[in-house]
C-alpha cells in the first residue's frame, strides 16, 4: 500500500486533525460554510460562507523533527468577496452567499480563485508581499520627498525584504450575465476561459473580458409554461478544453463538445438510467434530481449525486452508470416527511480522491460516507465535536433501520436533519479531507503509522 494514494482498506483509519470555525454560541447564519475547495496542489484550502466571506487556509511546511505529522492548515487570508445587493428592477435581494469557489492553476507566485454568488462571479488574486521597493529617486527611506535639485544620478528602486503580508484583491468582476441563480462555475483546462451555469443557461467567459460572455447552452423554452427541467450543475472536462457536462433536475447528464457548434443545445452524449419501476413513487422525480456532477481526475468517468445515491458513469456508456452506491437508502421510506421539512431538496456534493479510487459524499446527522470503488467497501464517519481530540481515530458509524438497535448505532428517527454535510473536499494527492458541518470546518487525515 503506497501511502497517500488513498485506497480505503481496513488499514485506512481516519483521524481528526483540525476544527475551524466559531463556537456554538455566537455563531450566526452568516457563518454557515457554503463551499469548500482545495487548490491544485493541496497547499491551500478555501471556504466560502453565507456572509459572502472567503477564508483561505494554508498548509504549514512539514517540520523536520516531526516527520510523521502532516502539516496543519492555518488561516492564510480572509476577505469579503461578495456583499448583499438589491435588484431594483425586480425588487429582489441578491444574497451574498458564496455558492462556489474554484481555483485557477498557478501561473506565477500569486494565487487566483473564482468565487461566485447567485449573480456575480469575481476573480480574486491572493498574493504575498514580502519585499518592498527601496531606493526611490524622489523619496527618501521614510517617504519624505527629496529636493529634485539634489539628485545627481538616477537609480532603479530595488526590492528589499519586509514582514510577510497577504493581500487579496479583486481582479475581475463578471456581472450581469445571469437572469437566474448561478449554481456552478468551472475553469477550463485552456486556462483562458471558464463557464458559469444558472438554472437555464450556461455562459462561457474569457478571464480578460468582463463585459461580454458567450452563451453556450440555453434550455429556456419559448413558453415558460413548458419548462420541465433545469440545469443543476456543470463542469469542464479536466483535459479536453472543448468538452463539458451539465446535469439536470430530471436525473440526466449531457456531454457537449464546443467544437461542434457555437450553441451547444444539441448534446454529443446523453446519460440517463432507465427508471426502476419497482421504486417509483410520488417523489421519484424529485429524488432523481442531480445535485452535483464531477469528472474523475482521469477524465474517463463522471460521478453524479442525487438525493439517495452516488453514481459513477463511464463516458463511453450512456445508458446506465457503471456503479451505484447507496448513501442513505434508509431515508427512502421517510421521503414524505423529508418533503415536508424541505430536506428532500438539499443539494449534496460529491468528491473523488486523488487517484479516483474512493468517492465521498455527505449525509445527515453530520455523517459523511466514503466508498472504495475497488474493494467495494464503504464507511460512515461523523464530524462531531466529541471526536475532536487531536489525532483521535474516527469510529465508523452505523444507522439502524430495524427494531433492534445496538449500543453504538443510531436509529433513523434520531437523526438530526438540521446537521447536514453538503460540502466536502479531498486533497488532490493525499488522504486529507475537509468537511463542512454548518459553520464548522473539520479537517481529517488518515492515520500515519
Amino acid at each position, binding site marked *: 500500500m503506497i501511502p497517500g494514494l488513498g485506497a480505503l482498506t481496513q488499514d485506512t483509519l481516519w483521524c481528526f486533525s483540525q476544527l475551524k470555525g466559531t463556537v456554538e454560541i455566537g455563531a450566526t447564519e452568516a457563518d454557515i460554510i457554503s463551499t469548500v475547495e482545495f487548490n491544485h496542489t493541496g497547499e491551500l484550502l478555501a471556504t466560502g460562507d453565507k456572509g459572502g466571506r472567503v477564508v483561505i487556509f494554508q498548509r504549514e511546511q512539514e517540520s523536520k523533527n516531526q516527520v510523521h505529522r502532516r502539516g496543519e492548515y492555518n488561516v492564510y487570508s480572509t476577505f469579503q468577496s461578495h456583499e448583499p445587493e438589491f435588484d431594483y428592477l425586480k425588487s429582489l435581494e441578491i444574497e451574498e452567499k458564496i455558492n462556489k469557489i474554484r481555483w485557477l492553476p498557478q*501561473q*506565477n507566485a*500569486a494565487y487566483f480563485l473564482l468565487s461566485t454568488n447567485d449573480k456575480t462571479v469575481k476573480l480574486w*488574486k491572493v498574493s504575498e508581499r514580502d519585499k518592498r*521597493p527601496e531606493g*526611490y*529617486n*524622489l*523619496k527618501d527611506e521614510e517617504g519624505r520627498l527629496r529636493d*529634485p*535639485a539634489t*539628485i*545627481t*544620478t*538616477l*537609480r*532603479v*528602486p530595488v526590492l528589499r525584504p519586509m514582514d510577510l503580508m497577504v493581500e487579496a484583491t479583486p481582479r475581475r468582476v463578471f456581472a450581469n450575465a445571469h437572469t437566474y441563480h448561478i449554481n456552478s462555475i468551472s475553469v477550463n483546462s*485552456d*486556462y*483562458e476561459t471558464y463557464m458559469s451555469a444558472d438554472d437555464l443557461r450556461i455562459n462561457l467567459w474569457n478571464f*480578460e473580458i468582463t463585459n461580454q460572455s458567450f452563451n453556450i447552452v440555453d434550455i429556456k423554452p419559448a413558453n415558460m409554461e413548458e419548462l420541465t427541467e433545469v440545469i443543476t450543475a456543470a463542469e469542464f472536462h479536466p483535459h479536453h*478544453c*472543448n468538452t463539458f457536462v451539465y446535469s439536470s433536475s430530471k436525473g440526466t447528464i449531457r456531454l457537449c463538445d464546443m*467544437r*461542434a*457548434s*457555437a*450553441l451547444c443545445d444539441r448534446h454529443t452524449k446523453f446519460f440517463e438510467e432507465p427508471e426502476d419501476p419497482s421504486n417509483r413513487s410520488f417523489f421519484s422525480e424529485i429524488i432523481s434530481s442531480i445535485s452535483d456532477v464531477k469528472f474523475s481526475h482521469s477524465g474517463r468517468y463522471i460521478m453524479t449525486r442525487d438525493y439517495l445515491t452516488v453514481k459513477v458513469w463511464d463516458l463511453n456508456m450512456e445508458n446506465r452508470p457503471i456503479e451505484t452506491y447507496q448513501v442513505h437508502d434508509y431515508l427512502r421510506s421517510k421521503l414524505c416527511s423529508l418533503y415536508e421539512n424541505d430536506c428532500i431538496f438539499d443539494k449534496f456534493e460529491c468528491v473523488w480522491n486523488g487517484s479516483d479510487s474512493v468517492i465521498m459524499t455527505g449525509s445527515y446527522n453530520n455523517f459523511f460516507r466514503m466508498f472504495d470503488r475497488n474493494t467495494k467497501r464503504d464507511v460512515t464517519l461523523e464530524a462531531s465535536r466529541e471526536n475532536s481530540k487531536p489525532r483521535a481515530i474516527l469510529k465508523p458509524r452505523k444507522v439502524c433501520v430495524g427494531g433492534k438497535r445496538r449500543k453504538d448505532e443510531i436509529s433513523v428517527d434520531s437523526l438530526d436533519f438540521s446537521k447536514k454535510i453538503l460540502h466536502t473536499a479531498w486533497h488532490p494527492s493525499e488522504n486529507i479531507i475537509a468537511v463542512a458541518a454548518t459553520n464548522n470546518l473539520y479537517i481529517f487525515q488518515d492515520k500515519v503509522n
Partner: protein
Amino acid sequence: MAEPDSDDSLNPMSILIDELQNEDIQLRINSINKLSTIALALGVEKTRKLLAVVEEAIVREKAVESLRAISHEHSPSHLEDHFVPLVKRLVGGDLVNSRISACSLFSVCYPGVSIAIKAELLQCFRDLCSDDNLLVRCAAASNLGDFAKVLEIDDIKSEIIPIFSNLASDEQDSVRLLMVEMCVNIAQLLPQEALEALVMITLCHAGEDTSWRVRYMVADKFTELQTAVGPEITKTGLVPAFQNLMKDYEPEVRAAASHKLKEFCENLSADYRENVILTEILPFSQELVSDTNQHVRSALASVIMGLCPILGKDNTIEHLMPLFLALLRDECSDVRLNIISNLNCVKEVIGIQELSKFLLPTIMELAEDAKWRVRLVIVEYMPLLAGQFGLEFFDAQLHSLCMSWLVDHVYAIREAATNNLKKLVEQFGKEWALATVIPRVLTLSEEPNYLHRMTTLFCINVLSEVCGQDITTKHMLPTVLYMAGDPVANVRFNVAKSLQKIGSILENSTLQTEVKPILEKLTQDRDVDVKYFAQEALTVLFLA
C-alpha cells in the same frame, strides 16, 4: 548610451522610474509605456532588469511592445550581447507567461545578428511552436507571420512552411484557427506558385475542419485569401468554398460568410463577375434570406445591397429587389433596420421612382413599428426621402406621418421629429411651413398632455431659426406667450427658455413690449425653476 547631462532632465526621469513600483496600475502602465525613454536615460545595463513576467496580460503586452521598440535602438552586436540572451532566458523560463512574451520578440532581434545566432533563434522558435502548453503554442502561432517577414524566401520555404503545416494540424482547434490568418500573412511573402499550393491546401483542410471556429476563421478571412490567390484560382477554387461556407450547418459560420458577401463579389474579376454572382452566389443568398437564425439574416441584410452597383439596374430589379423586400418584411427588427439604412446604394442604381414604388408601403409600416429604434431610423431618413420624392409626393404621402411622430410615446422620436421639421422647412421653404407645419404645431399647445404642449415649444425653438423674424413674431410668439400661463411648471419654465432662444431673432420693440412683461411675471412665479429660467432669459436678452 549617454547619461543626460543636464540636471533638469533627471527629474521627470526620476518620477517615471519611481512610478514603476507604484501601487496604482495605471501609473505603472504609464511608466512602462515610457520604457524606451527610461532606457535611454538609464543606459543599457540598467534597462535589462526590467522584464516582462507579470500576470496582467496588458502590462505584459505593453512591456513587450516597449522591448520591441527598444530593440531598434540596439546595434547588431548589442542585440547579440544583450537582447538575444534576454529572449533565450524568457524562452527557457518555467513560467508560461515568460515563454508567451518571448514569442513576440523574435522578429525584432533576428535581422542583423550573425548566422549562428539566427540558427539558435530559429530553434528556439521551433521549440515554442511545439511547446506542451496550449497558450504558448497559440502565442507562437500568432507570431509566425511576423517572424516569417524577416526571413529569406528560402528560409520561409524550408523552415516556416513545415512549422505552419504542423500547427495547422495541431490537435487543438485554438491553434488551427490561428493558422488561417497566418496563411494570409505568409502567402503575401511567397511567389505565386508556392502560395497557391499553400492557400488551397489550407482552405481545403480548414474549410472542412470539424471545429466550427476554424471554419469561422476561413469565412472571416475569406476576402484576404481571395486577394492572395488571384482571379484564376478564385474562380475555380474559392467560389465553391464560399458556397460551402454559406450553407454550413453552424449559424456563426454562415453569418461570417454573409458578412463577406459584398466584398467577395466586388473582388471578383470583372470578366466573369456578373455571371458568377447570378448563377453561383445568388441562389445561396436566397436560401440565407430565409435562414432560421436571425443573425445570419441580419448579416446578409447589412451587405446585400452592395451588390446593386455590381449587377446594374435590370438585374437589381429582377433578382435583388425580391430579396430586399423579403428582408424588409423580416420579423426581426435588426434585419429590417439594416435594409433601411442602406437604401442609398439601391437608389443610385435604380432611381427614386422605382424605389418608392417598391419600398413605400414597407416604409410606412416601419414608421409605425413597435420598436422605437426602427421608427427612429425612418424619422432620420425622412428628410432625404422628402428631398428625393419632392414636395407634392411628400405632402400627399408622408406629411401626416411626420406630424404623428411629434406625439410619439418615446421622447427620442419626438425629439428627432422636431429636428426633422427643421430640415424639411429648410428644403421646402417657410411658406410651406406656414401653410402646413405651423398650424399643426400650434394646435399641440391645446393638448391635455403636457408633454405634447412642451413639444410645441421645442418645435418653435427650431422653427424660429428657419422661418425668420416675421413669421415667428406674427404666428408663433403669441402662442409662446400664452403658454406662460400653463398650469404645469415644466411648461412654464420651457416658455422662459424658448423666449430666451427666439428672443435673439425678434425685434427690440417686440422684446420690450411683449416678451419682457411676461418674463417679469414669470420671475414672480411660485415655482423656483420657473423663476430661475425667467431670470436667466431676462439677463441673456438684456432685459433685466
